[in-house]
């Protein structure tokens, strides 16, 4: 029996749970006795627009079935350095730190650090709510920084097996933070431009250039970007350059594999070949 596999299964069950299911089947519920109506003290959370260092924030509702909670590690001029938290602390690796926020335990996943542009978070907070659910004490914050910088080890002692798969799935979740309507429009117009240039050109699903390789998974409609090994764990951004600037597909510590959801009508081999870049944040 492998306990970690069991917990990974639970996590995956939740992540891929279909919330559209209809209760068509009849369930026979007879003689329900009413439990006494509970009296409850509501949890203290507050809405925030511009979080500060040490704050633990939640983007609500989440982009998927599991909550999206972050620790604000640093507030820079143009972006926030965010560490994704997960309550699946059984999956802690050498890069994760166990922390307590109010009465719940999380792991601060320092290897999944993101650099989220301030205007992006602002935009997210207009469509969703940003809750501050707690804060981390200074001492703990410094420890997390040390682990993040690789000066200290985290709390887990295993990094492979089910924990590795968990990390890959977690890394994938956060790329959705970088998707915007505007990005989609630009990618669409780029694809159209290239198509009109070479209508007969067959789209290739993979390519390679300096510092990066990519693969487009048509079935999953996902762009998989594989940075060179020397870049893994470094703070970088993956962008598509265009006339007016760049589209950030991902920014943060580069995992070995960055999986970006991208529909078929947005993927263009030529656009990738000519415009995909890995840059410093």
């Amino acid at each position: 029996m492998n306990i970690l596999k069991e917990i990974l299964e639970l996590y995956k069950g939740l992540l891929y749970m279909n919330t559209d299911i209809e209760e068509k089947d009849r369930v026979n519920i007879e003689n329900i006795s009413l439990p006494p109506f509970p009296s409850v003290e509501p949890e203290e959370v507050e809405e925030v627009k511009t979080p500060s260092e040490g704050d633990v924030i939640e983007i609500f509702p989440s982009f998927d079935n599991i909550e999206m909670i972050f620790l604000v590690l640093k507030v820079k001029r143009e972006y926030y350095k965010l560490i994704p938290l997960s309550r699946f602390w059984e999956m802690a690796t050498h890069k994760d730190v166990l922390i307590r926020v109010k009465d719940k335990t999380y792991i601060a996943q320092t290897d999944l650090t993101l650099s989220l542009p301030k205007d992006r978070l602002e935009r997210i907070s207009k469509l969703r709510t940003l809750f501050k659910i707690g804060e981390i004490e200074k001492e703990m914050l410094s420890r997390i920084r040390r682990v993040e910088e690789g000066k200290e080890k985290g709390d887990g002692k295993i990094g492979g097996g089910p924990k590795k798969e968990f990390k890959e799935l977690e890394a994938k979740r956060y790329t959705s933070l970088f998707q915007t309507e505007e990005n989609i429009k630009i990618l669409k117009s780029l694809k159209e431009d290239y198509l009109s240039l070479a209508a007969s050109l067959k789209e290739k699903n993979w390519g390679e250039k300096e510092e990066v390789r990519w693969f487009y998974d048509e079935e999953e409609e996902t762009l998989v970007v594989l940075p060179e090994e020397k870049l893994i764990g470094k703070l970088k951004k993956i962008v598509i350059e265009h006339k007016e600037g760049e589209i950030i597909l991902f920014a943060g510590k580069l995992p070995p594999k960055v999986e970006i959801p991208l529909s078929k009508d947005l993927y263009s081999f030529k656009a990738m070949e000519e415009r995909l870049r890995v840059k410093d944040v």
Partner: protein
Amino acid sequence: MDLKTLLTKLYNNTLKDHEYKKLIEELIKMFIKVSNSFKTPLLEKIAKLRCWQKKDVYEDVVKDFIVILLKNRKRFEKMLKASEQELRAYIKRSIGNYLVDMSRKKLHYYLIESGLFKENQEEAPNRPIDTLGKHKEEDSLNNKVEEEILHKIEVNCVRDIFFEVINEEEIKYFCYRLDSKRYKCLWGNKSRDAMYQDVKRKSNSTYSKFLKAIKENDISEDAVREFIRIYMSKICEDLRLKICKEVNKEDEYTEGNT
């Protein structure tokens, strides 16, 4: 009456008895549906998720869930502004999260209460979690319990990996390292010299096999050391009792005398 109306009334604390009953009924239906998505072999065995079917159990669970909804008042308030369909999706997601957390707590409880950690009973947390998986008050301020469970799970995983890559024939080379005299009997009637030769020939490749698996699974030295400290003597003793004829005879003799 749709779910949104019922939940809005719950939020405003204006639910009448028959509406409260209707809400509980709706939630129970959703619980049964969602719980079917979470079935893992171990949970089937220990948590018996299907026990949601039993009225008394799911009534308690649903009540507990309502408490969580009310506790998350601000999130709840936001969701009440959404459409009926979005609200239903949110409730299902919340139920899924609730079930997963409850299953994890049951799993932690099982790990502590079952024999799994008992090789080192004195170090096991002393019943830190009750049957519903709630923490004792004194442990709720830090992560002591979680840290302990995390490390027990990890050491247990090293043990799983050990048995995955090392077969019964090869365990003796690890026991030899532990105590070459005590475990000489694992080589049967072979002479000391023959045992040395065998160890010399095969032990390194056996250790390498384990080390390779350790590396592949990115396991730290600490965890391996813990595994050896907690489990190795027991593994070797079990093997000794199984294989060494003279030991078995000795045990029979001792038993007969007592």
